[in-house]
């Protein structure tokens, strides 16, 4: 099937032999979305990226259930506790048996620095399990639950699959909660810049002339300012006494303030080139008014490109938020994002003592990579009629 897809896109495609008639006609009546899907499906890295992206967003959706505990729980007696590996099988007299557990900690004193450090004690066993009852939470803020995907069977003894930070907070739980914030801030920022970009780019591209000229100058201007200093300035402008949620929205607005320029350029470019397309003129000559021409003919022609550009701009947003929060200018606890978590690793001393604090960076890396591959594939598939 995949082989015939592209074949029939060639301009000289004609009535086929009887054997191929069925496949042929399914391609003949395929809409642009079907053609795009067929094209996208062949792009392996993009498919993989898409799947990973979906998984990450699924995690973001079910954080309360997936996280072993809440991200804010401070346990001063577990400062910088190292990660505990989850063992699935336990050695017993009758052989290996399914019974998840982790090894406990013992405290060692570093004789030189006179520092207390935790090390894994192979002797101790802490029982762990899947679908365990633990700390109660409100699922999506709607109903009470206490079921956790994975965790310690004894609520009194915490387990740190990915270690603890300097205040004994569980890194894994924080990271899972951070997924929701980091992934959604990108999405929200992108939707806001999408709105601005479509509006201003559309006006610019469709009407042209003075308006276009003005908007173009503004875009050029915004793009010539280095983003991080600008973002830093704007982020520092957010009052420190704002509640976390308002800060969160403040940051999305700041991120989209610059993000829209890129999209506006794409939209404008599309409008400009479409305006001169013959089929758009044909629609006008059919008697279609401006609104119909735009919505029925022009927008569908670049909508897929816009979706691709949107996908490709989410990673930028995620990276920007991470950088700002890392610097202490973005989000602050109790809101956790990957950037907020990475702030714990800001100086070499903490990194040296607790290298696992860098793990949220890995989450950023995976998410951004997946989105980039996904977006790249979308962009390639966005124009199925490319001759």
């Amino acid at each position, binding site marked *: 099937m995949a082989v015939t897809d592209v074949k*029939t896109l060639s301009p000289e*495609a004609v009535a086929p032999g009887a054997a191929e008639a069925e496949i042929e006609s399914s*391609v003949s*009546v395929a809409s642009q979305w079907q053609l795009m899907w067929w094209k996208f499906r062949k792009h392996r890295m993009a498919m993989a990226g898409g799947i990973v992206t979906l998984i990450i967003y699924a995690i973001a959706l079910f954080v309360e259930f997936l996280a072993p505990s809440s991200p804010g729980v401070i346990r001063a007696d577990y400062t910088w506790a190292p990660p505990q590996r989850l063992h699935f099988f336990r050695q017993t007299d009758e052989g290996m048996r399914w019974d998840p557990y982790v090894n406990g900690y013992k405290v060692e004193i570093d004789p030189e620095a006179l520092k207390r450090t935790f090390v894994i004690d192979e002797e101790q066993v802490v029982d762990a399990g899947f679908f365990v009852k633990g700390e109660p939470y409100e699922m999506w803020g709607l109903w009470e639950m206490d079921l956790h995907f994975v965790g310690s069977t004894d609520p009194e003894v915490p387990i740190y699959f990915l270690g603890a930070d300097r205040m004994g907070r569980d890194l894994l739980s924080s990271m899972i909660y951070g997924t929701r914030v980091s992934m959604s801030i990108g999405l929200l920022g992108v939707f806001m810049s999408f709105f601005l970009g479509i509006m201003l780019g559309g006006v610019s591209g469709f009407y042209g002339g003075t308006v276009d000229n003005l908007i173009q100058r503004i875009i050029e201007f915004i793009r010539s300012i280095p983003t991080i200093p600008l973002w830093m300035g704007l982020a520092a402008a957010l009052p420190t006494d704002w509640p976390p949620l308002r800060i969160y929205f403040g940051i999305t607005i700041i991120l989209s303030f610059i993000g829209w320029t890129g999209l506006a350029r794409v939209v404008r470019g599309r409008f400009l080139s479409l305006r001169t397309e013959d089929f758009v003129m044909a*629609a006008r*000559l*059919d*008697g279609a008014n401006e609104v*119909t021409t735009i919505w029925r003919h022009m927008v569908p022609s670049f909508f897929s490109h816009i979706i691709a550009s949107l996908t490709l701009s989410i990673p930028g947003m995620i990276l920007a938020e991470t950088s700002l929060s890392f610097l202490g200018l973005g989000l602050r606890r109790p809101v956790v994002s990957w950037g907020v978590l990475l702030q714990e690793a800001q100086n070499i001393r903490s990194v040296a003592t607790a290298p696992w604090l860098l793990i949220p960076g890995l989450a950023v890396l995976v998410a951004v990579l997946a989105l980039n591959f996904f977006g790249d594939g979308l962009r390639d598939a966005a124009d199925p*009629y490319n001759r």
Partner: protein
Amino acid sequence: MSAQLTNGSQHTTSKNNSATADNVLLDVRNLQKWFPISAGFFRRTVGHVKAVDDISFQVLQGETVGLVGESGCGKTTAGRCILRAYDLTGGQILFQDHDGEMVDLAPLTNNEMKPFRQQVRMIFQDPFNSLNPRMPVIDIVGDPLRINKVVAGKELEDRVASLLAKVGLRPEYMRRYPHAFSGGERQRIGIARALALDPRLVVADEAVSALDVSVRAQILNLIKDLQEEFDLTYLFVSHDLSVIEYICDRVVVMYVGKIVEVAETEELFAQPFHPYTEALLSAVPNPDPRNRQQKARIVLEGDVADPANPPSGCYFHPRCRYVQDQCSQETPELRQIAPGHFAACHFAEELTLAGVTASGELG
């Protein structure tokens, strides 16, 4: 056709067009279209490309008028102005309404244009760009019907089916998208779209230029057949003189935004009055190797003038082999040289120019 021959005398320039015969469908008067050239930071207009500069001609009911010239002569722009795809810089486009009244399309707003958009339709050059690739054929051909609320629902489907059958496509293909068709078939879809609203005037802009030789004849024949069947009037824009000769009753020759000659096809090809027309005819390669030796080809010097910066006087004078002093100073008017035969050349009467004889040789 003979009726139009006698009518030719009424076909005139702006000077003496007081009378309009009943069978004048389209009367273009002093049509002008200038495109601004802008430059600099503030996009100031620094000049104009005079794509169409003051042209007048008429199209009679039921005839095919050819608009011919080289690229950049303004023939496509003129066609699009008549369709009101562009706003005019100046002039009138008088179109005979159903009740016989002449209506000027030039000042109409988009809304006021709507009833006329049904009567004046267009066939595009490029069969690939002119069909929205994201729409199935039924929408492409049916949209004009839907927008103008002619028919809807099942009836619309039937109408599209019969239109497709008319242009030689299988009606069952109406759910297909353009990508499933070849160039020739797409051009048929474009023709079906143009015919959907029972138009009276069809502007065909290089309708066969992008097609392969073997398909071109099919489409030319189709265009001719449809004219008979639906009593259509064509304005046929093309650079290909042999196609023009085949399909047109009357020909308007343009050079750098101006009309240089208008005549019945047969007369124009047999006895041109403008040196540019002569050169054009002479440049067309003759598909018979035996005529090669007899032909004294006129090869024009230089290139087509720049419409943003045309030469003085007659725009053709720098390339004309009969050029006189007068030509660079005075702009020649389009005037009647013989009945129904107009040319814009100071020396049209004095010159004896070569045309094409019926055997295909140059006389």
